[in-house]
C-alpha cells in the first residue's frame, strides 16, 4: 500500500482545488511562515477521521472550512481526498486504488466516502485498521508535538502502542 496523492478544496487556506502527488522516498514541504504547510498536515489528519478539534487547531469543526480573506467570501464546504495504491491489497477491499474522501458543510456533519460511495466514519476506521493510520497514530507528528510523547503521563503513552498493528 503506497500513498499516491492528496487533494484539498475549501479546507483552511486551500480555497482553490489543490493536489499534491507522492512517489516514494522523501518529500520535503517548504515555505514561509503562515503559508499553509501545517494546514496540509491537518488536512491529512482530517481525511483519515480525526475528530479532535484541538489537534486540528480549531475551535469548532466548521472552523476548518475556508473562512475567506480580504477579497473572498468564506466557502460553505471543505473536501479532502487521499488516494492509496492498493495493488498489494494491504487494505482488505477489492480495489487496486483506494480513495478516501471527507466532506463537511458549515452547518452539518461530516460525510465520508470510499471510492466515491458514501460510508460511515466507522467504515473508514475499519478499513485503515492495522495500517497505523488511525487518529492517535505515531505516523503523523504535528508541529511542536515531537516532545509530547516525553512530557505526557505514562498511561497516555499507551495510546501510541495501541496503534501498532
Amino acid at each position, binding site marked *: 500500500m*503506497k*500513498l499516491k496523492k492528496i487533494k484539498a478544496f475549501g479546507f*483552511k*487556506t*486551500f*480555497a*482553490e482545488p*489543490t*493536489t*499534491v502527488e*507522492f*512517489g*516514494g*522516498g*522523501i*518529500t*520535503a*514541504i*517548504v*515555505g*514561509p511562515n*503562515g*503559508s*499553509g*504547510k*501545517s494546514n*496540509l*498536515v491537518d488536512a491529512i489528519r482530517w481525511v483519515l477521521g480525526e475528530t479532535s478539534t484541538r489537534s486540528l487547531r480549531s475551535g469548532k469543526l466548521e472552523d476548518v472550512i475556508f473562512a*475567506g*480573506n*480580504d*477579497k*473572498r467570501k468564506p466557502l460553505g464546504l471543505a473536501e479532502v481526498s487521499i488516494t*492509496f495504491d492498493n495493488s498489494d491489497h*494491504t487494505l482488505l477491499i477489492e480495489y487496486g486504488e483506494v480513495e478516501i474522501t471527507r466532506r463537511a458543510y458549515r452547518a452539518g456533519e461530516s460525510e465520508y466516502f470510499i471510492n466515491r460511495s458514501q460510508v460511515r466514519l466507522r467504515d473508514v476506521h475499519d478499513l485503515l485498521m492495522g*495500517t*497505523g*493510520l488511525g487518529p492517535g497514530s*505515531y*505516523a*503523523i*507528528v504535528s*508541529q*511542536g*508535538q*515531537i*516532545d509530547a*510523547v*516525553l*512530557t505526557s*503521563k*505514562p498511561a497516555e*503513552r*499507551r495510546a*501510541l*502502542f*495501541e*496503534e*501498532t*498493528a
Partner: protein
Amino acid sequence: TQAQFNEIFDRVAREFSAVYSRLFEGGTARIWQTNPENLSETGIEIAVQPPGKKQMPLPALSGGEQAMTAAALIFALIKVSPSPFYLLDEVDAALDDANVERFSAMVRELASDSEMILVTHNKKTMELANRMYGVTMTESGISSIISAELTARRPEPALA
C-alpha cells in the same frame, strides 16, 4: 490482546534502545511498562542516559536531546510496525547541525521502502528530499503548492 500487546511492546523497546544509541552515538535508553499484567491500565515509562552523562529526569534534558529522544521512539515504532507514509512537521526545529545529520541518516533509511513527508525550514533537511513542494500564498490568505525543482535531483527510489 494482552500477549500481542506485550510482544509488540518488547520489540519496540529493543528497537528504541538500538535507535537511541545510533542517534546519540552512544548512551542508553529504556522503556518499560508500569503494569504489564493489565493492558487497560498499564503506562509506559522512559529513562535515557546520553553518552558520558548521568541519567537525569526527562524534564532536565535539553530541547535538542528531547527531540532526538522522541524521534528515537517514533522511529522504533515505525521499524516494528510500518505505515504507508510518515508525516513529520518541523521535528528538526530544535536540532543543531550534527543532530540534523544523524536524524537525516535515519530518515533516509526508513524512507527506502515507504513515504516520508517532512515539513521543514532547515536547508540541510531539504537536501535529503527526492521531491520538494513549496507552499506559498500568491494571493494573501490562500495557499498554493508548486513543485520546486531540486538542484541535484536524486534518482527516484525504485518502488518495491
